[in-house]
């Protein structure tokens, strides 16, 4: 059985079921509140959720038991020199060392926890980047949405921010530098594209078995890096559109990636009224449409950046994604066939297998 944590505009829904059939809602938390992201730390079983109340501000909550009360984490604050308070929390990612977690948020901030998520501290080196006054947010805010750790090496981390590009560290976050070479922002004037740091990365993932390889879904572009994020190569040929938000990789296959193309930045819906996931197994040299079982007529869905996940690997890789329509779709065979896991939920912000 698979457990899904579905963060929605109106709370967290926990779904349970087997790949191939509908899932049941087994619990709900934070009713009425936007849940941007929820995950389970596989090392200790702890559930963590990013909740951004329109009234009471962004918080992280955690629990070790879904039937028990969620606890509010401490320390998620910006320093006094910040122009604005913390706006939103977008992701939580386990680090490579025990009980160490990262959380990314807006405005372009990284938090770390060394007690399994109960308390957090701002990463000061990233906060104090000298170019920060020149940073620009994307439409969803200046969100740090992707944190790619390096298996076995806690010092090497890559971050991605909309719209401040890719950042790299080799000293565990004490110093940071850009990793943007090759990213091509068509939304900027041509003469400004070369040197800009206004780079709107929508999602980034590292291949765990070949960690120098990373994939990016960009704001108009899909890219691969084979040198740990130093340089990027377009791999968008063969896709119906290079615009989209989420991305998933098969953790057992460094040549794999899955994207869900949308028409364009001015029409963020599935192309031609068909919902299709596109898969590459040759590192982006070619793409295959995967839509068997997905809506194929009059279906204009929007899938947000955290609303696509995988579980397992290989031919039985499970894939799940949710749309702002409130539908959640799944595949138990690495995308070859799909089923409807849930429908009629509030707009889906995030999907993660627990």
């Amino acid at each position, binding site marked *: 059985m698979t457990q899904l944590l579905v963060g929605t*505009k109106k709370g967290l829904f926990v779904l349970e079921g087997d790949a191939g059939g509908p899932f049941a809602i087994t619990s709900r938390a934070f009713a009425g509140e936007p849940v941007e992201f929820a995950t389970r730390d596989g090392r200790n079983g702890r559930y963590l959720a990013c909740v951004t109340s*329109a*009234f*009471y*501000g962004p*918080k992280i909550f955690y629990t070790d038991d879904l039937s028990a009360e969620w606890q*509010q984490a401490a320390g*998620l*604050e*910006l320093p*006094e020199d*910040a122009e604005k*308070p*913390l706006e939103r929390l977008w992701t939580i990612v386990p680090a490579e060392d025990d009980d160490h977690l990262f959380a990314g948020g807006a405005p372009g901030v990284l938090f770390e926890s060394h007690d399994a998520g109960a308390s957090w501290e701002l990463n000061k080196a990233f906060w104090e980047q000298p170019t920060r006054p020149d940073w620009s947010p994307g439409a969803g805010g200046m969100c740090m949405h992707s944190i790619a750790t390096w298996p076995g090496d806690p010092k090497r981390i890559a971050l991605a921010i909309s719209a401040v590009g890719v950042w790299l560290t080799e000293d565990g976050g004490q110093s940071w530098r850009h990793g943007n070479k090759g990213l091509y922002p068509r939304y900027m004037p041509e003469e400004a594209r070369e040197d800009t740091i206004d780079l709107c990365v929508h999602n980034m993932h590292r291949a765990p078995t070949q960690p120098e390889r990373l994939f990016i879904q960009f704001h108009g572009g899909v890219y691969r890096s084979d040198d740990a994020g130093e340089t990027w190569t377009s791999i968008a040929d063969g896709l119906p559109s290079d615009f989209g938000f989420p991305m998933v990789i098969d953790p057992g296959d460094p040549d794999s990636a899955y994207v869900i193309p949308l028409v364009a930045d001015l029409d963020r819906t599935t192309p031609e009224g068909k919902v299709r996931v596109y898969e590459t197994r040759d590192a982006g040299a070619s793409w295959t449409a995967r839509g068997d079982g997905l809506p194929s007529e009059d279906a204009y869905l929007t899938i947000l950046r955290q609303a696509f996940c995988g579980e397992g690997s290989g031919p039985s890789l499970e894939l799940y994604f949710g749309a702002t329509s409130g539908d959640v779709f799944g595949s138990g065979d690495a995308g070859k066939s799909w089923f409807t896991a849930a429908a009629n939920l509030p707009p889906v912000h995030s999907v993660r297998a627990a």
Partner: protein
Amino acid sequence: MPVVRLRAPLSELAGGKRELELDGATVAEVLKALEREHPDVRGWILDEHGAIREHINVFVNREYGQEDTSVSPADQLHVIPAISGG
């Protein structure tokens, strides 16, 4: 002392109390006193910079209050989420 009236979920964070007497000469001072007495409230009404969150209204008796609005011992402060959202 001024009286602060809270609704859920804030009242739950304040130990289940919907009405509290708290010291202070301004709205900010009274709300800081609330945070000191009930630390779980910290960050929910005032942000980390001491500003009233954008979508929270604090009424002093019948009038909208700001952080620096004066408060007298006979006043009542109502903390109410704004009529907003979707």
